[in-house]
């Protein structure tokens, strides 16, 4: 098998932790945003849509830099979080999770939004006449019917978070054991002599994790789809 060094294991575990936390924390916001964009019309909707997609089109370094000047210790949000709540994000793994979550957010919102838009809104009306308020209608009708899109959104966000490099390294640097993810570790190994073997091992690990996530998503989506058509 792969003979991974302790440092490489640390980078792998850190990457997984960051990607999971980023995805889990982004999920409620992603669902809420997707629902707003799919079902509601309000002032500033186009602006919200644009903001959500911004990390997709901006250079990642720019996103990372914007995070650094707003969430850094001396940034307006960062200073507030540090002084009032004792939360420091810059140069911490939690900051990496924030950067990854923001980079993955548009990829999460899009499939969920499309899935909600594809649901017949008349089913939601039917739920309302049967006594379900808006929250129950969402939980018992909209969300279960959007499940395949939900799974796609989760996997895309997770995959993006796992591989994110530019925004993360700009915001939280490349500190082994704290913010050095698989991507950052591979980058480091390519910069030092004799790093090729280590880089290759991590590349293989990244491929395996990504493939496993895709296969799992495909399987889950098929099972979710079967529930609507099968017995």
């Amino acid at each position: 098998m792969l003979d991974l060094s302790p440092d490489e294991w640390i980078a792998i575990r850190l990457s997984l932790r960051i990607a999971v936390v980023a995805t889990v924390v982004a999920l409620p916001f992603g669902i809420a945003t997707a629902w707003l964009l799919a079902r509601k019309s309000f002032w500033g909707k186009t602006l919200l849509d644009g903001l959500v997609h911004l990390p997709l089109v901006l250079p990642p370094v720019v996103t990372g830099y914007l995070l650094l000047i707003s969430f850094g210790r001396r940034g307006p949000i960062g200073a507030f979080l540090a002084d009032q709540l004792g939360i420091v994000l810059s140069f911490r793994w939690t900051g990496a999770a924030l950067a990854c979550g923001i980079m993955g957010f548009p990829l999460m919102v899009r499939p969920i939004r499309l899935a909600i838009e594809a649901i017949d809104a008349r089913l939601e009306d039917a739920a309302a006449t049967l006594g379900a308020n808006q929250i129950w209608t969402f939980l018992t009708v909209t969300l279960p019917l959007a499940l395949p899109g939900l799974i796609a959104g989760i996997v895309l966000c997770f995959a993006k978070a796992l591989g994110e490099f530019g925004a993360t390294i700009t915001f939280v640097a490349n500190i082994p054991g704290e913010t050095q993810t698989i991507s950052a570790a591979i980058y480091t190994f390519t910069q030092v002599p004799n790093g090729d073997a280590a880089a290759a091992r991590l590349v293989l690990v990244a491929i395996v994790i990504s493939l496993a996530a895709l296969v799992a998503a495909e399987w889950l989506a098929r099972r979710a789809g079967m529930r609507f058509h099968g017995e």
Partner: protein
Amino acid sequence: MLDVDIEKRLGDFFLSARFKTSNGVTAVFGPSGAGKTTLVNIISGLIAPDRGRIAIDQTVLFDSEKRINLPPHRRRIGYVFQEGRLFPHLSVKRNLDYGRRMCGLPPDGAQMQRIISLLDIGNLVDRRPGKLSGGERQRIAIGRALLMRPRLLLLDEPLASLDVARKREILPYLERLRDEVGVPMVYVSHQAAELRRIASSVVRLSAGEVAAVGGTELLDAADADAIL
């Protein structure tokens, strides 16, 4: 019973309806485009009228002057849609039970059994809606609306999407419903023959206005599509 006096503008279309119903089955009858579906959507709360008042007995559902507008989920009005609108991700049993759960009513196995045998759907309860025929789907939709114990049952062209044989299959169930369950019903259709079998009173709509209110003799005047 149901007391309606509403106005609603939708683009070029203007609906103005004023009538009272008694217990039993009230037919809302009229040609396509007369505003029948808009009217039942307003009664159910899915569409808000511009002006007016809707009440069932002493309960006011909508009153523009007093700024009352109960949302649909608090009206307790069962609604059987033209296309059934069963939840595709839930089994028939969970579809049937949905309204009861959402209305916070305690489980009532006896009532469930009564409705299941009334509509003859016992052999369907473990299936998914996707596997049902049109007629079966409509029977489940009727059962689902009844099991929430509604104050009033709205049926919007419940047979329109079915072929003649299926219509013949469902009509006896609707008659049993009228005779055995005792929930007041508002039954929308453009087919006089269908209504003659089931209605006790008739509200005739024409181009967004109530043209006549009376008994089933109002159906005779109209050009009945003699399908049944």
